[in-house]
């Protein structure tokens, strides 16, 4: 039996065969109800997933990657100094380097890290405030 993911801008809804999962039946959205009525509603249960924008968690792997200079650089301070690709072809106009995400919070985290390397007294742990980062993720919900 098919699984029918049906995507909506705000929430993800998935109809799964009853036999496959134990799901919570909750107040059903109208579009999902209409779809279920079109299909044989006996065959499906309704599951509404949590909004990915509200249930963020502090996974240590995210924190480790945020601290990693190979991912975030040192806040973009030395972009010029580093090797940039030499375009051998000029067919398509190059786009500027992607701007840092809103509020440049990544720059905020990585900048102290770069100086931490130069100032031995500074604890590394200060460099990334993951709670702050993930807090922003939570706030992004409107």
């Amino acid at each position, binding site marked *: 039996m098919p699984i029918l*993911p049906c*995507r909506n*801008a*705000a929430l*993800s809804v*998935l109809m799964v065969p009853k036999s496959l999962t134990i799901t919570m039946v909750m107040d059903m959205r109208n579009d999902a109800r209409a779809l279920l009525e079109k299909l044989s509603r006996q065959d499906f249960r309704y599951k509404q*997933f*949590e909004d*990915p*924008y509200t*249930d*963020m*968690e502090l*996974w240590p*792997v*995210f924190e480790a*990657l*945020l601290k*990693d*200079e*190979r*991912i*975030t*650089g*040192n806040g*973009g301070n030395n*972009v010029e100094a*580093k*090797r*940039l*690709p*030499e*375009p*051998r*072809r000029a*067919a*398509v*106009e*190059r*786009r500027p*380097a*992607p*701007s*840092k*995400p*809103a509020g440049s919070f*990544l720059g905020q985290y990585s900048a102290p890290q770069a100086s931490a390397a130069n100032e031995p007294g500074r604890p590394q742990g200060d460099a990334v405030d993951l709670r702050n*980062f993930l807090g*922003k*993720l939570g706030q*992004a*919900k*409107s």
Partner: protein
Amino acid sequence: MTIIAVHSPKGGSGSTLIAARLAMSFTSRGRPVTVVDYTRQDTLKLHFGMVPSQTIQPWRGAEADAPVVGGVRLVKGYGSHMAPEQLIQDFSGGDKSQLFILDISSSDLEVRREVSQFADLNLCVLEPTPAALTSLTLLDEGQSVRELQNFAVVLNRVDEQYKLSRHCRRFLAELLGEQYFGIVRRDEAVNEALAQFEVLEKFAPHSVVLRDVTALTNMIEAYLKGEPVVGSEGVDAPARRAV
């Protein structure tokens, strides 16, 4: 001529699937597309309905070894003595509308690096797993991921049933900003179609993978035109989500 390099720093992430799907998607929009297979696996052809016994010989300069399937020209770059740029020149014939999509093996960082110098877009395919995210750290020895030019990430095989899938998606959107090109969801129909030697459009015309790749194609088109890339998600996703 436009060049899109598809690569993942971790094998099995779906680079070949994405390369094949993008090729068919752009072809359906009327662009002449050539896919160059730089992997040893030889599985790209399956996405075009070819069977395992049908082999494509490495390109050595003879047209006979580049079959056109479903409007897409398939070229075997792996094992060819030609440098990628030279091979592309061989096929472009000065046609500016030509689109080249290169499927680059995860372990072949040499080809990745060489191609990244001239590709218009380097599309990195990741899965929503800690292993895939971690593999990003070894992508480029010279630059951090955030500093890479003409670089974007697509998160493949997303399954929103799983918490980590949802969190990885949100994390990458925030981390990468404009470099994040959204998701392609997991659909077992991909594998069922391959098992059937059928193309996905025919086997499962309503597959979410087709829908997601259409959205990805739109983003890439906008990017190549130099237009602001408006995805279904990203740093200022909340505003867009209200649609």
